[in-house]
């Protein structure tokens, strides 16, 4: 599709640091340079003033309501007006993936065998109207996420993880209790303390409260479905005007105290976001300096890419970070003949990985060919360790190994190949190209693919994510991508390979993998409090999934970002895989 397509980033992006092991203070800051923004804060400055201009080729992908959003660009942007309990440290390089306290004073204190998490919030944080933020405001924000009818677009961790009550908590709009504090699993013993009671131990809970859904919402100023038009800000900026799908203007929040929020800055005197700008227009305006940031943060289009890579002065003003996404093909283990592991292995061997990479944009705009699932920014992943694990010769024989593929076909009883369907999102040109590339490369060994494209809006809700549909239409290969909600093995793998994650609608375990080994490793994640031990499971899960030939990895996504010379304090935040929007200023 044309116009509004590009950039619907599916989930959170985590980015990697590229090659060096440097921290923020890795040598003197260069003034310019390709990829300098990945490891250094470029143009550091505390100069105030100017108008910061964002543009996007689409509208806000879901909502500006911090309780109702699930996109990396939004979780990044929302730090300008919302303060969740925890956040990711604002710094370039690896430290940008660390979760640190934001509204809270310290990470959660665990008690009760991992079932109780206690946070203390800072005592002098104020809303944009001057009222003091208390722990009840945080509890109210969490309560809102229980109303899946009003706020369906954000993640559903709180209803899933918190201790249940009978009858189930219906959300604050049907809450009949005093002061709308009817959610029993969350307690606020005093205005600066909030206590979460979990149904089962969940060692990654600090990551969960880093989601914008814990940003406080004053109950008496909540406007339900209209809150997105003007969320009551606790961040450095507040909404001045918002016309959905057209323009959003923010101005500095006078009641923001920088001492309470070291991860954000209040430098520009105005922030303007313009939506639904023609994608080529976005790039042209970016290069011309009319805008400074492309909001989705997924990189420039082909024309700008060529200009940037072939003009040394422009290349020195660009960064090519790992965005935290893996693009891959799910091989459905329940669609015959892919029920036989050898048929799946045949696909793994026969696929032309170079062509798949080219389909996604080549090494700069697409990413590096992957032989495992988790990208290098996921703590404990095979890719992060630098060790090689390449069962199907993705890096050694990227054009594919037809001999081995044919051997596998013999072993699965289909010596002349077989037919199956491949499904993809028809409004994403990269996925269209990838599906066609697979069709061409698998045909070399007699595997015939029929193409089934569906629009992104209905992809997981009505088609690829509905196992019944997948089975009845023989969709053996499913083009997909994934970025974890937080940068560890659980965030990366649970929803895409755990047997319990298979869901009748909106399924994300598209391979319908139900391997007890994988399941038990993921289950151990929740209960293991030792972080090092937890993270050691990640590589094991990764390798097991590859041994099961459940996923055919494509690339670890990269984005080619243009670093506008007018920006100050600009660097890539590894968690979001794009520039940190909370600290930008103007020259």
């Amino acid at each position, binding site marked *: 599709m044309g116009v509004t397509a590009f950039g619907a980033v599916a989930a959170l992006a985590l980015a990697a640091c590229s090659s060096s092991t440097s921290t923020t203070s890795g040598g003197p800051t260069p003034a310019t340079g390709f990829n300098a923004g990945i490891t250094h804060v470029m143009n550091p400055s505390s100069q105030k003033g100017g108008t910061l201009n964002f543009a996007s080729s689409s509208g806000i992908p879901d909502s500006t309501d911090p309780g109702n959003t699930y996109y990396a660009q939004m979780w990044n942007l929302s730090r300008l007006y919302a303060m969740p309990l925890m956040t990711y440290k604002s710094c370039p390089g690896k430290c940008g993936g660390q979760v640190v306290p934001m509204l809270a004073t310290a990470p959660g204190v665990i008690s009760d065998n991992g079932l109780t998490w206690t946070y203390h919030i800072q005592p002098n944080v104020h809303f944009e109207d001057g009222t003091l933020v208390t722990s009840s405001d945080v509890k109210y924000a969490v309560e809102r996420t229980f109303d899946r009818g009003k706020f369906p677009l954000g993640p559903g961790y709180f209803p899933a993880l918190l201790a249940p009550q009978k009858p189930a908590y219906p959300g604050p709009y049907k809450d009949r209790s005093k002061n709308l504090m009817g959610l029993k699993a969350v307690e606020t013993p005093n205005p600066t303390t909030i206590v979460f009671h979990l149904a089962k131990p969940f060692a990654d809970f600090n990551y969960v409260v880093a989601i914008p859904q814990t940003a406080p919402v004053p109950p008496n100023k909540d406007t339900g479905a209209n809150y997105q038009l003007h969320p009551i800000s606790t961040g450095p900026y507040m909404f001045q005007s918002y016309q959905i799908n057209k323009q959003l203007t923010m101005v500095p929040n006078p009641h923001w105290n920088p001492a309470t929020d070291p991860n954000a800055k209040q430098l520009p005197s105005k922030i303007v976001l313009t939506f639904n700008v023609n994608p*080529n227009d976005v790039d042209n305006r970016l290069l011309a300096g009319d805008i400074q940031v492309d909001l989705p943060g997924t990189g420039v289009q082909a024309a700008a890419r060529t200009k940037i890579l072939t003009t040394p002065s422009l290349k020195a003003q660009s960064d090519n970070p790992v965005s935290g996404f893996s693009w891959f093909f799910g091989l459905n283990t329940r669609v015959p003949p892919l029920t036989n592991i050898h048929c799946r292995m045949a696909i793994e061997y026969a696929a032309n990985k170079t062509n798949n990479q080219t389909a996604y944009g080549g090494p700069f705009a697409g990413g590096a060919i992957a032989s495992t699932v988790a990208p290098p920014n996921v703590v404990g992943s095979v890719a992060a360790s630098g060790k090689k694990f390449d069962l199907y010769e993705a890096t050694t024989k990227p054009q594919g190994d037809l001999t081995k593929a044919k051997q596998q076909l013999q072993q699965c009883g289909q010596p002349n190949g077989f037919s199956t369907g491949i499904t993809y999102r028809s409004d994403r040109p990269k996925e269209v190209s990838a599906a066609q590339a697979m069709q061409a490369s698998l045909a070399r060994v007699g595997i015939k693919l029929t193409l089934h494209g569906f629009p992104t809006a209905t992809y997981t809700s009505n088609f690829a994510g509905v196992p019944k549909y997948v089975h009845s239409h023989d969709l053996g290969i499913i083009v997909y991508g994934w970025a974890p909600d937080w940068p560890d093995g659980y965030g990366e793998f649970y929803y895409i390979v755990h047997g319990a994650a298979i869901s009748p609608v909106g399924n994300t375990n598209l391979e319908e993998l139900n391997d007890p080994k994988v399941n038990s490793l993921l289950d151990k994640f929740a209960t293991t409090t030792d972080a090092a031990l937890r993270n050691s499971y990640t590589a094991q899960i990764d390798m097991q999934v590859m041994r099961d030939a459940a996923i055919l990895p494509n690339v670890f996504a990269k984005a080619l970002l243009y670093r506008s010379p007018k920006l100050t304090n600009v660097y890539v935040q590894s968690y979001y895989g794009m520039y940190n929007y909370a600290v930008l200023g103007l020259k």
Partner: protein
Amino acid sequence: MTAPLEAPADAAPETVLAGVGAKAIEGRSLGQIAWMRLRRDKVAIAGGIFILFLILVAIVGPHLVQDPTVYNANLIDPTLSAPRGPFGGISLAHPFGVEPVTGRDVLSRVVNGAQVSLLIAFLATALAVIIGVFMGVVAGFFGGWADAVIARSMDVFLAFPLLLFAIALVGVIPSSAFGLSGNSLRIGLLIFVIGFFAWPYMGRIIRGQTLSLREREFVDAARSLGARGPYVLFRELLPNLWGPILVYTTLLIPTNILFEAALSYLGVGIIPPTPSWGGMLSDAVNSGFYAIDPMYMIIPGLAIFLTVLAFNLFGDGLRDALDPRSAR
């Protein structure tokens, strides 16, 4: 859409004279006169020849060219995803070059695209014309309440924004419905929408023509000789209607070609990897590759332009040939 056409009043059918029994005077029929005049219009003939050539290409071409779905990744520079070599990778093996990212042969995609684009345009036009002529004749000939009903329904259909409807319908219908799926469903939908909502344009014109013809002298003459309704309809009116029908059909086709191109640009045209001219143009524009590899946009753009131009020239010539008063 275009200026009204009136059939000349001097084309007296030979049948009346023959019926009188007199020796038939060697007169020229409307068709012969028109053909003679058309022959002299070089530009229109050029358009007509191009159209025939195009139809030939659409029917035979796909069998003569390469497979339009084959990827030639070796012809693509992986860093920039652009074709190697100037002018979009033109070479002997690929006379029109190759596409960016995929390396598919542009010539074969243009030829196959001709098939799809022309198919939709012709069928959609045919549907609109058939419905339009039927409704127009019925309304104009029978008058009375039939006319009133048809005229009102034409108003209703004309009230719908066609482009919006086409886009919305395509977006709203699931990808597999009514027993069809994929491109057969999409093509069927496009033909249905265009035919179903564009018939009033033809209907109005035909109705107007029928109304004015009904009052002409030769119809009175036929009636005075005892001719009944159906006779008048089929032997007197319809032969005089084919002129405007032909002209407006010829002028409706290029509109529908442009329409399909517009729908593809907006993302609701033919589903890839089936090539269509509008789809190729849309790819070139929306991916931004037109700036790096202009041939990728120019070639399908030129194909659309020349086709539409040819139909317009031929249609203009046809109209001039059939109407003696608009002497050039």
